[in-house]
C-alpha cells in the first residue's frame, strides 16, 4: 500500500515539473486565433489551462517550416554558433578538469577558486571588455566572437571535476605503475567513466549557447548572421501564432541530446559499485 502512495506522489511531482513543457507542446497545435484569444488578458474573464485545441491544426508548424525561409536560415546560424562551442568546451574542460581533479600541481586549489569566481561575473560586465578585445583581434562580425568565449567558459571544468573526483585514485595508481602516460590514463580510464558528466555538460552547454541573445546582438553587424534565439525573443511581442511551434522546433535538438544520453546521465556518474 505504501508503495502505491509513493508512486502516486512521484507521478504528481513529475507532473508539476513537466506540465509547462506539455502545455507548450499542446499549444503548438492550436490555431493562431485561439492563441491570441488565450494571451489577451484584457477581456476580463479568467483563463483556464485547457490543453485541448479547439481545432487541431498544424498551421503553426506549416507557417514556421514552409512560409518563413528566414527562420530556417537562422536555425543554421544557431547550429554554427552552438556546435563548435559545445565541442570546444567539452574537450577543453575535460582536459583541465582531469588536471584539477587528479593531478597535483602548484596553486591548484587557488587557481580552481579563481575559476569559480570567474563564473559568477555577471554577463553585462564582460560584454564591454570582450567587445574591445574582440575588436582588437578583429573578430567582430564573425562567428568566432561567440565560439571562443563560449569554449573557454569555466562552467564545464567545475562540472567535470566533480564527476572525475568520484573515480577512485586506485585505478589511476595502478595504471601509473604499469608505466601508462597521463594522456593514456586520461583517454583509457577517465573518459569512459565520466560519460554521464560529459553528456550533462553537452546538454547544459548546448542550451546556454542555443538561447544566447545579448552577444550576437552586440558582436554581429550583419542581420543575416543572427541566430534563431534572437528572432524567438522578438516573436513574443509580434505574431503569437507561431511562437509555440517555433519553440518546439527550437527545443527538439536539445531533447535529442537529452534522450540520447538520459540513461548515461544517471548511470555512470554514480553506478560504480551497483
Amino acid at each position, binding site marked *: 500500500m505504501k508503495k502505491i502512495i509513493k508512486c502516486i506522489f512521484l507521478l504528481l511531482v513529475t507532473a508539476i515539473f513537466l506540465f509547462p513543457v506539455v502545455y507548450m507542446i499542446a499549444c503548438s497545435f492550436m490555431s493562431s486565433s485561439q492563441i491570441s484569444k488565450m494571451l489577451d488578458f484584457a477581456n476580463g474573464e479568467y483563463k483556464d489551462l485547457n490543453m485541448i485545441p479547439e481545432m487541431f491544426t498544424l498551421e503553426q508548424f506549416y507557417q514556421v517550416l*514552409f512560409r518563413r525561409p528566414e527562420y530556417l536560415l537562422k536555425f543554421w546560424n544557431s547550429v554554427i554558433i552552438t556546435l563548435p562551442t559545445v565541442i570546444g568546451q567539452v574537450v577543453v574542460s575535460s582536459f583541465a578538469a582531469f588536471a584539477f581533479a587528479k593531478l597535483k600541481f602548484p596553486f591548484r586549489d587557488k587557481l580552481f577558486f579563481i575559476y569559480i569566481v570567474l563564473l559568477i561575473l555577471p554577463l553585462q560586465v564582460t560584454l564591454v571588455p570582450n567587445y574591445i578585445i574582440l575588436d582588437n583581434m578583429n573578430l567582430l562580425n564573425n562567428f568566432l566572437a561567440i565560439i571562443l568565449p563560449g569554449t573557454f567558459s569555466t562552467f564545464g571544468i567545475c562540472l567535470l571535476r566533480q564527476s572525475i573526483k568520484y573515480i577512485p585514485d586506485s585505478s589511476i595508481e595502478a595504471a601509473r605503475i604499469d608505466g601508462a602516460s597521463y594522456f593514456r590514463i586520461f583517454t583509457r580510464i577517465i573518459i569512459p567513466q565520466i560519460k554521464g558528466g560529459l553528456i550533462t555538460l553537452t546538454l547544459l552547454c548546448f542550451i546556454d549557447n542555443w538561447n544566447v541573445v545579448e552577444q550576437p546582438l552586440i558582436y554581429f553587424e550583419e542581420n543575416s548572421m543572427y541566430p534563431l534565439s534572437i528572432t524567438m525573443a522578438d516573436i513574443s511581442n509580434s505574431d503569437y501564432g507561431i511562437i509555440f511551434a517555433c519553440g518546439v522546433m527550437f527545443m527538439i535538438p536539445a531533447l535529442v541530446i537529452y534522450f540520447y544520453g538520459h540513461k548515461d546521465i544517471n548511470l555512470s556518474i554514480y553506478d560504480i559499485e551497483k
Partner: protein
Amino acid sequence: MKQDKYKKMAMKFGALFFVVVLFLTYFSKTIDNLLLPKVKVSDVITGSLSEYPDTMHTHYLLPLSSVVSEEVYVIFTDEKGEVTVNAVSVNICGSNDLYYEVTSESLFSDMQVVYKTSKEIFDGDRVYVEEGE
C-alpha cells in the same frame, strides 16, 4: 542491451531531424514561392477611348479583368526582390470589350497592374509574378 536501443533511436531521430531541416532550408525559397498566389501583370497604358479626351486628368487604359469593384491591385517590388500588392481605387469613365478607361490620383504610368491571379489576394499580400501572357 536495452540502453543501446534508446541511443540508436535518439541518434536516428536526431539525424533525421537535421536532414529534414536541411532539406527544408535548401528548398525554403522555392516552397515559399510555390505557395504564394501566382499573378500575371500588365503595364498601365495612358490613353483614352473617346475621340476628344479631357486634358484635366490623365486617363489610363486597364485590362477588363484587372478592375474589381472600383479597385485595382498594383505590384511593388522591394530591394530584396519580394513583390507585394497594394489596392488602388480608381473611377471608371468608360470601357469597351478589352479595356476600362479610368482616372485615379495614385495611379502612374510606370506601374504594373494585376489582371490574373491563381488565388484570392488582399492588400499587402506577397505574390509571385508569372511571366508571359
